[in-house]
């Protein structure tokens, strides 16, 4: 924990999680002939070039046709394969949402839906290309597990776990570069990890917000506020025990996500705690269609940074 916090305040190297994703998928494909990739003209943006070269028959590129892509993946699963659907998250979730619900989740097929470049990763390309609704949309679908790995190591672990999980999964695969915040090890889909201890307030963060929550922890520590930091790598099902304990022990919760403030991580935590251990909360996320700007600018614009998280925590601690 101390190491993670210390490295977060230094200029730390940052990584695009798609690289770890693609490397891991290649390694798994070499071991397991059932693994195939399905994409929508997204070979480049999903970093699948090497996969295409090594396994040309096992990369099924249906062209720019997301509904066909997800349905095809369901059919491949029916035929005994484990498809990883790799597509830009806004189009995968927005265009093919009914296929995700009916063809994958309701059928209970072991399809891994990989939402590449989620959140506001496409920065200046604007709200059409941002995927801030994916948490709300996928979270509402029964039997769909929703994963949000926070860094390359966790992406790698999540991909390995998903390949063997034999269940419908949606996973965000980040493009916006993040520092390493987790250590190598197996992915635990049932557990929210505590990355920093604290008893005054808890920051519940997911994905790109985890490293920023750790930076906020340091800012707050300098003021004498002890902020616990939780990394929600499985958005659904939520680790209720860890969240209720945080509410009980710290009495205040700030959630931070690169996603809509409606129906995402904040909503999920509020649904849980309002019925079990209500505490004052602040929900940080994206409240509206974003203006023009690169991802870093937009995250700052919406207060999705260490200063914004620290300010919300300070407000709660009063």
């Amino acid at each position, binding site marked *: 924990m101390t190491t993670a916090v210390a490295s977060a305040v230094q200029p730390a190297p940052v990584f695009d999680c798609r690289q770890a994703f693609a490397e891991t998928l290649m390694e798994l494909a070499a071991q397991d*002939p059932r693994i195939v990739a399905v994409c929508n003209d997204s070979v480049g943006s999903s970093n699948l070039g090497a996969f295409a070269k090594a396994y040309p028959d*096992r990369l099924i590129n249906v062209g720019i*046709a997301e509904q*066909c892509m997800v*349905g*095809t993946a*369901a*059919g*491949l699963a029916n035929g005994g394969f484990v498809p990883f659907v790799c597509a830009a998250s806004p189009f995968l979730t927005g265009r093919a949402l009914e296929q995700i619900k009916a063809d994958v989740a309701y059928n*209970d097929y072991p399809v891994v839906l990989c939402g590449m470049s989620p959140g506001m990763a496409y920065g200046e390309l604007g709200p059409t290309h941002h995927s801030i609704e994916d948490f709300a949309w996928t979270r509402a679908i029964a039997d769909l597990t929703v994963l949000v790995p926070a860094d390359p190591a966790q992406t790698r672990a999540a991909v390995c776990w998903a390949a063997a999980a034999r269940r419908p999964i949606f996973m965000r695969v980040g493009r916006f570069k993040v520092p390493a915040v987790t250590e190598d090890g197996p992915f635990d889909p049932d557990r929210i990890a505590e990355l920093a201890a604290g008893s005054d307030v808890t920051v519940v963060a997911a994905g790109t917000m985890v490293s920023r929550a750790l930076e906020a922890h340091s800012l707050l520590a300098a003021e004498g506020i002890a902020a616990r930091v939780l990394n929600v790598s499985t958005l659904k099902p939520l680790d209720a025990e860890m969240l209720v304990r945080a509410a009980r022990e710290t009495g205040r919760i700030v959630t931070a996500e690169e996603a809509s403030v409606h129906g995402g991580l904040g909503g999920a935590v509020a649904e849980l705690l309002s019925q079990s251990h209500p505490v004052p909360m602040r929900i940080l996320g994206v409240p509206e269609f974003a203006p023009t700007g690169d991802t870093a600018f937009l995250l700052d614009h919406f207060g999705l940074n260490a200063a914004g998280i620290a300010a919300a925590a300070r407000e709660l601690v009063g």
Partner: protein
Amino acid sequence: MNAGESSKAATQARAPAALAEADFDRSPASLGEVAKQIRRSVITMIDKAGMGHVGGDLSVTDILTALYFGILRVDPAVPDWPDRDRFILSKGHCVGALYSVLAKRGFFDEALLADFLAPLSPLNGHPNRRKVPGVEANTGPLGHGLPIAIGSAIAARLSGCNWRTFVVLGDGELQEGSNWEAAMCAGHRGLERLTAIVDRNRLQQGARTEETNRLEPLADKFTAFGWDVLEVDGHDMPALLDVFGASGDGRPRCVIAHTSKGRGVSFMEDRVEWHHKVPNADQVAAALKELTV
């Protein structure tokens, strides 16, 4: 061992016993009688449930009977046999006919049909593979079956297995764009072990297809998308068995089956109101009488 070898090993282990074919008469005349029984079953189920899609059930009955009793290599005792042929009912609302055929074929007890649409029954208004043996895909929203069938056909090719994939599409549902994404994909890939059957009854829920959003020239459209297109009388059992018997010639095969909604019951046939109208007691009696001759 690759996926194909693994699947083939399973096939060899289980297929010979599973596919013993002498358990029923597959002659067209016999299948015509089976189809009549299926139609009676559909009327009885909808009468009891007070709900259902009788028109489309009756238009697709001969197609389903030909497939399940004459063509598909499936084993009701081992519904998930890996090398089985796949069938997907894209027009999932016509599930009354599918349930009747699956039960008659031995996938589950025919007595269960009496629970169609009853509270907590596995026999929902649209098929659910998690509850009903023999169902391959949960359909209902239109335009979903063909993409899933493409995945199944690609899986067969990738694993080096021999199974065929069949999908029945309603004609009205061809107004869904997802079908044309899939039609393009199947044509491009030359999925010759895929057969899509269009139940061309020319009626959709509220009106004729050609008045609502024109489909014709339908054969030309599929041909242009790279399919081997055949047209057939969708109630002619020998003709159906003939066109379903062979795969396409390097292209996916599209069978446009010309049918009548409500087929077999004179007062329902080709009448738009019988899309999901429920017959009253007199109509049920009259329908069953016509279907008993």
